[in-house]
């Protein structure tokens, strides 16, 4: 036994303590850091307007914008013309989304489940999907008029493709073992589709739905910009043409609240329906 050994004993009696290094920024709670970023944004905004870096026509001050936000909010709550305009846009979005879901799901099953669909229909879908779909807006106006139909059509047109792709990808997600198991159980094609492939593909389908939910909003507003009507997009267009920038800002904000609500609805449904697939909610909420 050497001296070194006896010396080592007290050292080994000590508890092993380690301090994990966490950077200061990572320890700040989420609410605080989010507020901080928002405050910086407001500060820069205020600074750029009060220093006269940007013309007030291009960028109103935060104060002006807030005042208009309150005005528009009151108008919406009192059921005035803005609420009617919003209602028209909401209808366009809901009809468009419903139409996109029905068409997208049907085409998705056709493409994902049948060899004919995959060989003969998918190439055309891909070809149409690569086109700038907004460019079809004048056609829809010409075919369906200046009413809400042409906006619904454009909104549905944009939202359909991600739903088709999500559904088809979902149907392809079933693994070899599950297919083999269903075969050994003597399941029919319909049973395999309903009891295995569709539920297994739900996570991908919901991904398609989420992309579609974003697209359907863009479609409805673009439709209103290009095809007139009485919706919220028209209010934005009019406000912009009058150089009423605060109004444009607040209208966009309320519109995005609606978009957010639609997205949240899809996410909420997903959590209910695909409760068993943890990975599909990570990053979506919280």
């Amino acid at each position, binding site marked *: 036994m050497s001296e070194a050994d006896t010396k080592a004993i007290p050292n080994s009696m000590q508890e092993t303590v380690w301090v994990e290094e966490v950077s200061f920024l990572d320890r700040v709670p989420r609410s605080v850091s989010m507020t901080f970023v928002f405050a910086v944004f407001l500060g820069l905004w205020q600074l750029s307007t009060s220093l006269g870096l940007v013309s007030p026509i291009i960028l109103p001050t935060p104060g002006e914008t807030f005042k208009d936000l309150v005005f528009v909010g009151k108008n919406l709550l009192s059921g005035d013309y803005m609420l009617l305009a919003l209602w028209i846009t909401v209808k366009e979005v809901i009809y468009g989304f419903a139409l996109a879901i029905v068409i997208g799901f049907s085409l998705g099953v056709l493409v994902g489940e049948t060899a004919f669909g995959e060989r003969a229909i998918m190439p055309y879908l891909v070809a149409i999907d690569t086109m700038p779909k907004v460019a079809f807006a004048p056609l829809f106006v010409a075919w369906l008029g200046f009413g809400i139909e042409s906006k619904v059509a454009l909104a549905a047109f944009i939202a359909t493709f991600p739903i088709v792709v999500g559904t088809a990808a979902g149907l392809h997600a079933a*693994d070899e*073992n*599950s297919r*083999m*198991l*269903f*075969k*050994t*159980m*003597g*399941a029919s094609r319909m*049973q395999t589709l309903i*009891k*295995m492939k569709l*539920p*297994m593909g739900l996570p991908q389908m919901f991904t398609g739905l989420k992309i579609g939910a974003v697209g359907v909003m863009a479609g409805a507003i673009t439709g209103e910009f290009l095809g007139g009507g009485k919706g919220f997009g028209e209010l934005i267009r009019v406000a912009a043409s009058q150089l009423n920038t605060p109004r444009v800002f607040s209208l966009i904000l309320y519109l995005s609240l609606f978009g957010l609500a639609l997205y949240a609805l899809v996410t909420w449904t997903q959590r209910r329906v*695909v*409760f*068993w*697939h*943890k990975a599909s909610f990570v990053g979506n909420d919280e």
Partner: protein
Amino acid sequence: MPLSAAAADASAGNSAPVYELTNVGKTYARNLVIALEDVSVTLHRGSFSSVIGSSGCGKSTLLKIMAGLIPPSTGRVVLQDQPVTGPRRDIGMMFQQATLFPWRTTVENIVLPIEIRDGRAAAVKAKDRAHELLDVVGLKGFEDVYPNELSGGMAQRAAICRMLITEPAVLLLDEPFSALDELSRDMMNMELQRICAEQHATAFLVTHSIAEAVILSDHIYVMKPRPGRLAEVVTVDLPRPRTLDMITTPKFGSLVDYIRGLLDKGEAL
């Protein structure tokens, strides 16, 4: 050593064959590969048989033919006096992965074969039987749990129940525990032996493990590759019930050595 196919009948010592394959061959038309050549297998009621061989020896092709998933090119495949011409309800199958569906509870997964064959009402009725089976495999209390809360071994136990619920005449086991760790695997093999004995099951196991084949089987079909054919049918006359202690006995060791010798010879070809 009693290692010939002729001695096969002695150990099981009982009734007529349940499953009989006679001179079965399989050639894949696509690339003219001969996957299987002149394979004959006889499974007696209540017996446990294994097939072992290196990859490419055609054992998964053999299993798929036995499961009615693919047709043989030549030969006869007869289960309970009926030629096998597709998936059948008297065949139960289990894979390397438990393949439980995560949106169904354990008991709903187990009655799935009934639901597919006889409809939802029959599946509801079969739940009592499912509960009994869960008890047999030691999963009592996990009926209404979703599969992502089950461990790998528990999931395979549930898969065993799903296979047994239709009371199949033959169990086809495709490396059922090879995804588990070695300790769970040994334990599950002993469980499998117990369950098969209790249910008087006729089982056919595909495995890569010589020790697993020896500890479980009455007969071991040793296969050699290119083209896949039988090298020999080895009879294991270790007493039942088998225990894990037997692994250290000289008899077990010599059986393992003998089979390894056969496999090495097959490899050299």
